[in-house]
C-alpha cells in the first residue's frame, strides 16, 4: 500500500507499506569492506527513522530473462525494433501504449509491486519515449505503484522525472562510475577530477542523497515545479524533459496538476511561462470563460506587483477613479498581465491569479507579447462591448493594433493624475447613454462568469436567477431561497452547498460516484467508483450515489487518481446528506 504525503505535478512523496519512503534511490548493498554481494541486493539510499530495512532482490537472476520473460516478450522486442511503434508517441500510438505492458513488476519485500521500466537507462537519452512510458505506467491503476527507473542515476534528473511521475531511481550506475574513480558533480556544478573507488563512491552516494532530500523538501513545500525549472536551467537533459512535459505531454500534466496550491506561483524563467497552471488558465479563459453580459465597456488595466490586484496601491487608486464615475457596474475590468494574459476582475482571487510573481522589468519577451495579444483579442471578441478603454503603458505598444477603436488614457504612469482624469472622462463618455445595471444583476453576472470558469458550462446553473448576498469577503449565492454556494475571497472559488451540489450534478459535471454510504469526513479512494474527467486536485466536487447527492467537498486528487487509487484520502467532505 502506498501512502502519499505530498504531491506536486505528477510527483509525490510518501512511503510504501514495507516502509520504503519515496522518492528514493536504490543502491546496491555493500558489506563493511565495500564489497558487493552477487547478484546485488538493493537497498534504499535514504532510510527514515527505525523502519525495517527493505531488501530488494533484483528480479533478474540470469541475464536471459532481461526484459524477455517478465512483462514483455520477444515479440514485443520485435515491435520495438520494427519502427519502435510502442515507444513512439509521435504517431497515433495511444492504443499501443495501453495495450502493451510497458513495465516489469517486481516484488519489494513482498508488499507493493514496483513498476520498473526496462531500458530506462537507455531511454533517458530519448526523453520523449521515456516520458511516454512513465505516463503510461502511471495511468489508472498505476497510481498505486511506485515507478522505478532502472539505470537512471543522474542527480540532476531526479527533480524533473519525479515531477513527471517517477518515484525510484537507480544507484547502481553510481557505483559503476565510482568503480572507474568518477565523481558525479552536484547538479549544476562543473565536472570533478577522478579519484579512488571508495572516496568516489562515498561522494556519488552523497550527491544522490542530497538531491533526493532536496526533491522531497520541494514536494513538502509544494515547489517541485520550481526546483525542476532550476535543474533544467543547468542541464540540457533536464530541460528537454521539462519542455516535453510542457508541450507534448501538456494534457496529461495539466490533468494531474492541482487547481490551487498553497504557495505563490513563481515565474522566474521562460520555462515557467508554459507550466500547466499557466496554460490551464489561458486555456480556460479561451474555452470556458464568458464575460458578464451586463458589462458593456471593456477597461484594460495594468497588473500590480501585489496580489490580489485589488489590494495593491495602483488598483486602489484606479478603483477609486472608476467608482467616482458612478458607472462602474457597466465596466468589465480586465487586467493585462504576463504570464496569464488576461485576468477579469471577478476572477482575481482565483489561483494562480491571486498569487503569482514575475520579474517586473516593463519589458516583455516575444512569446509573452504574442500570448497577451491572442488572449486580448479573444477577450474583446467574446464580450459584447460597445467600447474599449485602456490604461496601459508598456503593453500598449504591442496591443494597439488589435484594439483599433480603443482609447488609451494613460499619460506617463497609469495612476498619474492625468491618467485618472482621462480614465474618468473616458468612462463617462462611453457610458453616456447606457443604463447602469442593478447591483444584483451585476453580481449575478459576475458569479455566472466565475461559475463557468470554475466548473465549465454546467456551472452556469449555480448563477442563473441567483441572488447574491454578503460582503466582498464572503459572498453567498441563493437560488429559490436556498443557498447553493459561497465565495470566499481567500480561495477565490465557489464552495458548494448540498443544494448547489444537486444543481451541479443535474448538469453532469464534477460528480464523483461513490459506494452506498453517507460521507462524513474524508472520502477514501476505496469508496470511489468513478469520477468525471474534468475534476482536478483542489476542485469542488459532488459525491453522488446512483443519482442522489450524498455530499459535497474538495477533491484531494485529480480525476484519474480518484478512479485509479485503491487507498488514501480522495475527497474532503464539507456538507453531507442527512441519514434517513
Amino acid at each position, binding site marked *: 500500500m502506498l501512502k502519499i504525503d505530498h504531491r506536486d505535478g505528477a510527483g509525490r512523496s510518501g512511503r510504501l507499506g514495507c516502509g520504503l519512503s519515496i522518492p528514493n534511490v536504490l543502491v546496491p548493498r555493500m558489506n563493511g569492506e565495500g564489497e558487493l554481494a552477487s547478484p546485488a541486493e538493493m537497498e534504499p539510499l535514504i532510510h527514515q527513522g527505525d523502519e525495517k530495512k527493505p531488501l530488494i532482490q533484483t528480479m533478474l537472476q540470469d541475464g536471459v530473462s532481461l526484459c524477455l520473460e517478465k512483462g514483455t516478450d520477444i515479440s514485443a522486442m520485435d515491435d520495438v525494433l520494427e519502427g519502435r511503434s510502442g515507444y513512439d508517441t509521435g504517431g497515433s500510438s495511444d492504443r499501443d501504449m495501453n495495450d502493451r505492458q510497458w513495465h516489469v513488476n517486481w516484488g519489494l519485500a513482498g508488499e507493493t509491486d514496483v513498476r*520498473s521500466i526496462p531500458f530506462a537507462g537507455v531511454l533517458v537519452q530519448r526523453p520523449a519515449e521515456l516520458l511516454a512510458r512513465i505516463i503510461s505506467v502511471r495511468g489508472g491503476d498505476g497510481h498505486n505503484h511506485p515507478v522505478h527507473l532502472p539505470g537512471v542515476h543522474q542527480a540532476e534528473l531526479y527533480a524533473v522525472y519525479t515531477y513527471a511521475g517517477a518515484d525510484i531511481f537507480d544507484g547502481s550506475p553510481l557505483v559503476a562510475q565510482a568503480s572507474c574513480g568518477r565523481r558525479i558533480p552536484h547538479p549544476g556544478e562543473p565536472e570533478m577530477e577522478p579519484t579512488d573507488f571508495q572516496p568516489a563512491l562515498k561522494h556519488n552516494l552523497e550527491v544522490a542523497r542530497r538531491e533526493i532530500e532536496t526533491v522531497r523538501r520541494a514536494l513538502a513545500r509544494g515547489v517541485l515545479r520550481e526546483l525542476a525549472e532550476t535543474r533544467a536551467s543547468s542541464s540540457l537533459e533536464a530541460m528537454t524533459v521539462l519542455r516535453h512535459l510542457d508541450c507534448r505531454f501538456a494534457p496529461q500534466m495539466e490533468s494531474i496538476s492541482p487547481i490551487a496550491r498553497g504557495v505563490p506561483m513563481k515565474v522566474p524563467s521562460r520555462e515557467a511561462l508554459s507550466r500547466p497552471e499557466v496554460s490551464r488558465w489561458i486555456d480556460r479563459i479561451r474555452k470556458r470563460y464568458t464575460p458578464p453580459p451586463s458589462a458593456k465597456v471593456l477597461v484594460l488595466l495594468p497588473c500590480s506587483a501585489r496580489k490580489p490586484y485589488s489590494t495593491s496601491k495602483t488598483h486602489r487608486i484606479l478603483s477609486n477613479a472608476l467608482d467616482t464615475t458612478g458607472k462602474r457596474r457597466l465596466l468589465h475590468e480586465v487586467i493585462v498581465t504576463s504570464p496569464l494574459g488576461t485576468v477579469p476582475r471577478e476572477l482575481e482571487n482565483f489561483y494562480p491569479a491571486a498569487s503569482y510573481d514575475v520579474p517586473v522589468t516593463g519589458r516583455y519577451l516575444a512569446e509573452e507579447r504574442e500570448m497577451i495579444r491572442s488572449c486580448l483579442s479573444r477577450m474583446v471578441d467574446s464580450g459584447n462591448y460597445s467600447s474599449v478603454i485602456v490604461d496601459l503603458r508598456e503593453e500598449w505598444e504591442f496591443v494597439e493594433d488589435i484594439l483599433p477603436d480603443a482609447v488609451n488614457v494613460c499619460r506617463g504612469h497609469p495612476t498619474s493624475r492625468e491618467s485618472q482624469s482621462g480614465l474618468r472622462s473616458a468612462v463617462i463618455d462611453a457610458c453616456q447613454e447606457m443604463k447602469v445595471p442593478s447591483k444584483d444583476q451585476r453580481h449575478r453576472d459576475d458569479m455566472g462568469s466565475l461559475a463557468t470558469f470554475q466548473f465549465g458550462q454546467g456551472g452556469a446553473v449555480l448563477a442563473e436567477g441567483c441572488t447574491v448576498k454578503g460582503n466582498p469577503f464572503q459572498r453567498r449565492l441563493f437560488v429559490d431561497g436556498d443557498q447553493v454556494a459561497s465565495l470566499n475571497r481567500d480561495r477565490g472559488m465557489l464552495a458548494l452547498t448540498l443544494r448547489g451540489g444537486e444543481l451541479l450534478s443535474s448538469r453532469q459535471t464534477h460528480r464523483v460516484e461513490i459506494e452506498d454510504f453517507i460521507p462524513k469526513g474524508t472520502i477514501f479512494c476505496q469508496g470511489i467508483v468513478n469520477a468525471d474527467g474534468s475534476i482536478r486536485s483542489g476542485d469542488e466536487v459532488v459525491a453522488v450515489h446512483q443519482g442522489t447527492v450524498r455530499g459535497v467537498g474538495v477533491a484531494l486528487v485529480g480525476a484519474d487518481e480518484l478512479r485509479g487509487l485503491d487507498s488514501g484520502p480522495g475527497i474532503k467532505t464539507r456538507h453531507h446528506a442527512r441519514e434517513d
Partner: protein
Amino acid sequence: MLKRFEAGKLKGNDGGDDRRRKRSPRSPVATWTEQEMVDGKQTPCLSIVLRTRGCSWWQKTGCTFCGYCNDAHPGVGEEDMLAQLDSVSDRFDAHDFVKIYTSGSFLDPDEVPGSVQRKAVELFGQGRLLVESRPEYVNRSSMDELVSGTGSLELALGLESSSNEVLKKSVRKGFAFKDYTRAATTAREAGARVRTYLILKPPFLTESGAVDDTVRSIKDASPYSDVISVNPVNIQARTITEHLWRHGMYATPWLWSVVDVLVKGSIHAKDVRLVSSPTAGGKSRGAHNCGRCDRRVMDSISRFSMEGDVGLLEDAGCDCRRAWNAQLVLEDGTLGGYPDMRRDIRD
C-alpha cells in the same frame, strides 16, 4: 522478421548497392593464412571465405548478429564458385590445413552445389580440411563422402549456445541444441573431427549472463567437440545487433569476459582444445576493454589459444577490471540501462 533488415537481404541486393555490386561473383570474399595447431604442432593454415548466394537461414530470417551475408552475391552460380576455387589454388601453395568458410553452409547443396563441394575436396583435401555447416545439412552419406575424400575432415558447427532459450531469443538460430548434438554425433561416427563455435554475448544478455551462458555451453558441447572456439560478438553491418548497439541497447563484451570464459571453461573442456580469436578485439565494434590493456589481453588470449595454458591468460593488471567486476554484479538490476563504463575510461 524486421522490415528494416530485410533491405539488406538478398532480395534487396540485386543491383541496389553499388559497393557490393562491384564485388565480383568470381572472386572469393577473403583468403588469408594463419598459424594453427594440428596434432600438437604449429602448422600454417590457409583460410578461404567463398562468395556464395548466401546462407539459407539468412534468407528466412538470419541470426541477430550475423552480417556475413553482406558478402553474399545473389548472382553467384556454379561456374563462378568453381572459378573462385581455381583462383585460390593458383595463388597459394598446398597447405596441410585448409579452412573453407562460406556465408552459410558448405553442405547446403543450394548454396554450394555438389560439383563445387567435390572440387574443393579435390583441390584442398590432401591434408586437414575444415568446412562449416548448419546441422540440418549434416547427414551420414554426405559426411562419408567428405571424410573419404580428405586426409582429415573437421566439421565446424556454429552452435553459439547450448541454451535453447538463448538460441531462440538472443541468437535466433533456428535450431535447438539437440539438432547440434545429432549433427556432431553423425560427423564423429563418420570419422570427422568437430569444431564447435560458441558466441559470447549475443543481444539481450547481461555481461554476467553472457559469461555464464558461454561457460555452460562449453561444458555442454565438450562431449561432442574436438575444438571449441569462443567468439565474442563483433558488431556487423546491417544486423539487429548493430541496430541495438546504435541505440545504446547493446554493448560488446569485455575482453575480461573472454578471459573469464576461457579460464572457467577450461575446467569443463576436458580433452577439448579451447580457443578464441576475437574478431575486431580491442576495437570499438569488437570485444574490448578500457583501451590501455586491450593489446596485452588480446596477446594473452592468442597465446592461450595456441598453447592451451590458462596461466598465460592475463586476468589482472588494469584498473578497468574493477569496472568490469562491478558490471557483473550490478547490471542485472538496471534492466538494460547499464552504462558502458569503457567509454568513460577511454576519455
